[in-house]
């Protein structure tokens, strides 16, 4: 198998990463169209941030759990959650990942190792510590990865979680997707010291700052962190510098708080464009094959819409089921 000397990434993994990112982007674009038609109710787009979960999930197995946020479609796709079931969930259908009960902010598929997206900023972080604790107690070698935004760095629970994970040497990777904004608030304003990575040493864990618009760098940085975690050497914090291309949510016009120049700068470092060049430069692929991957993504996304459209809404009784396992 061809393997790049510089990056240590094999061809198959490289192609998987490209496919995952292009599928994610097309899925998100389709979600936007579904929202414009009034079928999909509200979402936070991950366009621009595809490389972060893709580079990390390339190292993960189904048994490893990830946890996401309000902006989590890219996490789900990278972890292998079924696109049809995702789209069905987003359209509120009974065939959705969560039977239509959770929607865009709560997609979960524990069999695929997606322990759920969470709408309360920071709330998912200690849950990842708990999943890592299970792994340690059961001796399963599974790791857990929690994604959170630069905004979550304001929540105290992050630091309680980092401390717990560190003193107990738990296999957790804390991944801050620093896309520079929490809603309209730039992290330069809200984050003392301008860095979350720099906070990690205080908890006796490595904190690394990575170009989150490079899937290759994400892959390499997380490889080390995940190996350490699996070997029982404890947690790592990764601060992935990235950018969301669209507004905070559907109707948010981002130019009310950022500039066109800034948007252009980050778009010029687009993760998918760069991966395309990488595939060609490494001789892993060519234009034609890449177009084929784009087309494959296109078809998969179109199929997901068809599947969702043809699926029924949940029965009204579903409103009352699954609040408890048993309640009588």
């Amino acid at each position, binding site marked *: 198998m061809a393997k790049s000397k510089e990056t240590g990434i094999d061809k198959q993994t490289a192609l998987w990463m490209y496919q995952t990112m292009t599928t994610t982007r097309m899925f998100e674009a389709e979600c936007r169209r579904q929202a414009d038609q009034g079928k999909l109710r509200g979402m936070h787009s991950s366009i621009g941030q595809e490389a972060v979960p893709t580079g990390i999930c390339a190292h993960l197995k189904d048994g490893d759990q990830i946890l996401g946020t309000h902006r989590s479609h890219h996490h789900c796709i990278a972890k292998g959650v079924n696109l049809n079931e995702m789209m069905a969930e987003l359209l509120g259908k009974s065939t959705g990942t969560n039977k239509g009960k959770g929607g865009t902010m709560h997609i979960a598929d524990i069999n695929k190792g997606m322990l759920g997206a969470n709408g309360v900023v920071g709330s998912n972080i200690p849950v990842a510590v708990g999943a890592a604790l299970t792994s340690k107690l059961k001796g399963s070698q599974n790791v857990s990865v929690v994604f959170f935004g630069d905004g979550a760095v*304001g929540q105290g629970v992050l630091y309680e979680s980092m401390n717990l994970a560190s003193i107990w040497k738990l296999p957790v990777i804390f991944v801050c997707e620093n896309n520079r904004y929490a809603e309209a608030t730039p992290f330069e304003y809200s*984050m003392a010291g301008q860095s979350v990575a720099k906070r990690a040493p205080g908890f006796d864990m490595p904190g690394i700052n990575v170009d989150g618009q490079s899937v290759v760098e994400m892959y390499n940085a997380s490889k080390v962190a995940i190996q350490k975690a699996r070997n029982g050497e404890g947690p790592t914090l990764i601060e992935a510098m990235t950018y969301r291309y669209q507004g905070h949510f559907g109707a948010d016009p981002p130019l009310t*708080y950022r500039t066109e120049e800034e948007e252009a700068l980050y778009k010029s470092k687009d993760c998918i464009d760069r991966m395309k060049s990488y595939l060609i430069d490494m001789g892993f692929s060519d234009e034609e094959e890449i177009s084929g991957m784009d087309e494959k993504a296109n078809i998969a996304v179109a199929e997901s819409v068809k599947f969702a459209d043809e699926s029924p809404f949940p029965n009204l009784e579903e*409103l009352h089921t699954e609040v408890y396992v048993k309640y009588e």
Partner: protein
Amino acid sequence: MTQSQENSRQITYVQAVNEAIEYEMANDPDVFIMGEDIAGGAGRADLGKQDAWGGVFRLTKGLIGKFGEDRVRDTPISEAGFIGAGVGAAATGMRPIVDLMFVGFFGVCGDQIVNNAAKMHYMFGGKVKIPITIITSTGAGTASAAQHSETLYSVFTHFPGLKCVSPSDPYTAKGLMTAAIRDDDPVIVFNHKLLMGRTVKPEMGKGIGFGSIVPENSYEIPIGKALVPVEGNDITLIGISYTTLVCKEAAVELQKKGYSVEVIDLLSLSPMDNETIIKSVMKTRNVVIVDEDYPRCSIASDISALVAEEAFDYLDSPPIRITAPHTLVPYSLPLEMEYLPSKEKVIEAAISILE
């Protein structure tokens, strides 16, 4: 403004709250406000992009331009931190307004609200006052699923030491917001998302605020008092916030069928206007309470108990509670619509009593 304009001025709920805050800030230098993106684009004054949002619901739009960033403070996402800081500022001479964006996030900062804001005045022998106003948003109907759509009034009314109000239209929103800021106790103001113009079903937004005339001058609606927007003799419908609108719509239909309906707009949840409720029920002898909150240990249950204890002999029928079911708020549209108390459910309940 002419007299007739003054008597017919209609503004949105959001504008009404904004006016109340602006007036209080202009007239009391101790009033200030903190929250996430309540201005938006914090620290971007150099780019002229400092008032990007004005809060998720735009309740605070324009305030930073008028009062500056000292008194209109964008915060990091640190509810426990800034709401706790609000309590400390209140204890030491300020009158903070803090924004808890969605009521479900009280889970992050509940300690500051229930262990400090609610308790300090009493625990410290009445020697410290906590004149903080917490504004928050409630309600389903916006496809926001289980964590962003709750009502949770009863969580807060459960605690002695907290006052709770829930406006139902622009007029009551302005008057209660003003009263809350001026009150020397901690007051939580629950603003329903549908009343603030958020809706995924346009028909649900129709009629919101209709007929609500909002005076330009400042005024208070006293905390602890309900209003009776519709008077009648056969049945009392009690609404809270958005469900008052549901009750008024149901009343129109019931009147067409020949019933004389009274609607109480509860407005204050703690203290609650027991007197207005009891007086009305003694007159109509029938009551339907419409509350969007979870049914267990709710305001609806509280009112039902009150009526049973204090007006039992006057009742022609047991009180009926129309609430959300004992389940969580679903995302899927048909389920979410089924979840909400609706005009149809109220009419059905009323007719079951009256026929």
